[in-house]
């Protein structure tokens, strides 16, 4: 029997450093196939579909005033909601990590609720709460705050669904924060605020930015909870996903694909920027 020994060192490219961990070929292959099937293929289909329009028509569809208003609302509301969440998410994470109080586990579990709840249920609940006769709507509407069926309602819904992202990314980092580092700051004369501002905040910032990015990305694509509270008036409180649905219902598949592709491009650019921001803040942490 002839024995053929092929040397992996010569068959593999030089870009791959030798490692003792087995299974590189298999896992890498699986990862690539999987990502292609699940992510790349649908996105490619979307782009191809949209390209059927031709450039001029594509530009016309994606820059229509109604579409522009929808982008503004979707990205604007998502940005505001993620900004709100980064502040209050860090606060919630702080409280959950640093203090002991009754029913802490329950509160901790509550944070995940927006994950678990069907988004439509959340949307209906929020709409009921904030409508003219709802518990909160009844109180704030006479004061001139109209929440339900306005862009403000959209923000509220997006804050709701985005909360867990910041809390769950910041919490473990806060937990691992070395107590000695804070003590060191205190022994050098820093007060609690200075310690938080100069020591703790920079440490949790990368995680908070990650949470922000996740909440933001989720909010851009959110549909279920928003449509019930938004009112869905074209040019006023209509989000991009809804616009796409409307186009689909009118059998304007190419138009829907075009707006989807524009959305995709914008999201990609934004996430890229956030990623660069993260890399920068991580490098400042000394490569941690």
């Amino acid at each position, binding site marked *: 029997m002839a024995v053929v020994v092929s040397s992996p060192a010569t068959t593999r490219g030089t870009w791959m450093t030798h490692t003792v961990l087995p299974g590189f070929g298999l896992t890498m292959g699986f990862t690539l196939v999987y990502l292609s099937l699940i992510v790349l293929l649908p996105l490619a289909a979307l782009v191809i579909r949209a390209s059927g329009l031709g450039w001029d028509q594509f530009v016309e569809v994606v820059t229509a005033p109604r579409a522009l208003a929808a982008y503004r609302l979707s990205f604007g509301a998502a940005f505001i909601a993620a900004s709100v969440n980064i502040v209050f998410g860090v606060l919630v994470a702080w409280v959950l990590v640093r203090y002991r109080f009754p029913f802490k586990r329950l509160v901790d579990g509550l944070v995940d609720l927006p994950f678990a709840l069907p988004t439509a249920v959340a949307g209906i609940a929020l709409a009921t709460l904030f409508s003219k006769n709802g518990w909160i709507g009844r109180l704030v509407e006479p004061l001139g705050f109209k929440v339900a069926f306005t862009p403000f309602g959209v923000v509220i819904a997006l804050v709701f669904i985005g909360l867990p992202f910041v809390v769950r990314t910041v919490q473990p980092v806060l937990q691992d924060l070395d107590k000695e580092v804070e003590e060191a700051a*205190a022994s050098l004369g820093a007060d609690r605020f200075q310690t938080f501002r100069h020591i703790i905040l920079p440490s949790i910032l990368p995680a908070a930015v990650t949470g922000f990015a996740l909440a933001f990305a989720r909010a851009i694509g959110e549909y279920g909870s928003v449509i019930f509270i938004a009112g869905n008036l074209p040019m006023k409180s209509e989000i991009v996903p809804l616009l796409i649905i409307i186009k689909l219902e009118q059998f304007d598949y190419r138009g829907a694909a075009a707006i989807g592709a524009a959305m995709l491009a914008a999201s990609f650019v934004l996430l890229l920027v956030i990623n660069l921001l993260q890399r920068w803040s991580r490098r400042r942490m000394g490569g941690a």
Partner: protein
Amino acid sequence: MVIEVRNVTKKFDTFTALRGLNLQVQPGELVALLGPSGSGKTTLLRVIAGLEFANEGQVLFDGKDAGSRHVGERRVGFVFQHYALFRHMTVFENVAFGLRVVPRQRRMSDSDIKKRVLSLLSLVQLDRLSDRYPTQLSGGQRQRVALARALAIEPLVLLLDEPFGALDAKVRKELRRWLRRLHDDMGLTSIFVTHDQEEALELADRVVVMNQGAIEQVGTPEEVYDTPATPFVYEFLGNVNRVPCRINNGKVSLWGIDVAAETHDGTPIPEGDTAGFAYVRPHDIELTPVGQGEPAVVRHVAAAGPTARIEVSVQGVVPLIEAQLSRKRYLELGLKVGQQVGIAARAARVFPASASPSPMAGSVSG
């Protein structure tokens, strides 16, 4: 500055870390807190720093109660065991931190801060690394950054928690000498915690030996080494053979010498025949040709270096006995494993068994 610890007791939930401790540290002294893990030495250091507050008792700085003063107001320089450097700040910013957090009306100008930080960094020989981040430094360099950072606030006391614990042997030795020089040059009062008896004996002016939340002995390195006050100190400091023996009317005959039994707390020795332990240092043991002294058999020989370590078994004694001979004497006797020899003691101290530390406390000494 005089630091006085008066009757300090510290409890964590159910665990008592410090039991009514008293200690006084004179200005300019370098004091080592030495003990096994769990003996309370780090807790004592943290109570002095104000990072922990005592349940009972007081800490006095120059006679004034420091209890109401927060750690930031005590002007202590604290060097943490794992350095606790600010990872997102450069070496320069780490050292400058204590100067920058001072309230604005008392803060130095930026150029003064810069001058001071640079002079501290050159003191710890890190001036060329001021732009690096802590993760880009070696262990010894991080240690020196931590020290420079603590010194920046011009502390009255320098407190160091296991300052050399995480460093390799060579760096440790260098830093030890360097710290001693620094302490003397700056006229600091320093306290450091260590579990390494060699470190404590070499570096400190006085050694505080702690065990189970209490002080066993305070003294100069010579005092605690040559005349340990308790069986615990005997076992914790340096090599020692613990030989079980019988005490007969307060006296023991061991390997050619008669030793009077003693207790460290003044309790009387029981009358008649009781169990006890004799402590014999390896260098207080003499090996002789067979026929003289108590019969023994050589079990192990380690002869590299200026002295030879010989382990022998003695009939009726369970542990192997370690003897330390000069190289010359070792060659004279021509010792080999399995050889019959005689054993004699030059000096020993005997404590009744009831006064000996538990086997657990003893085993930590290795």
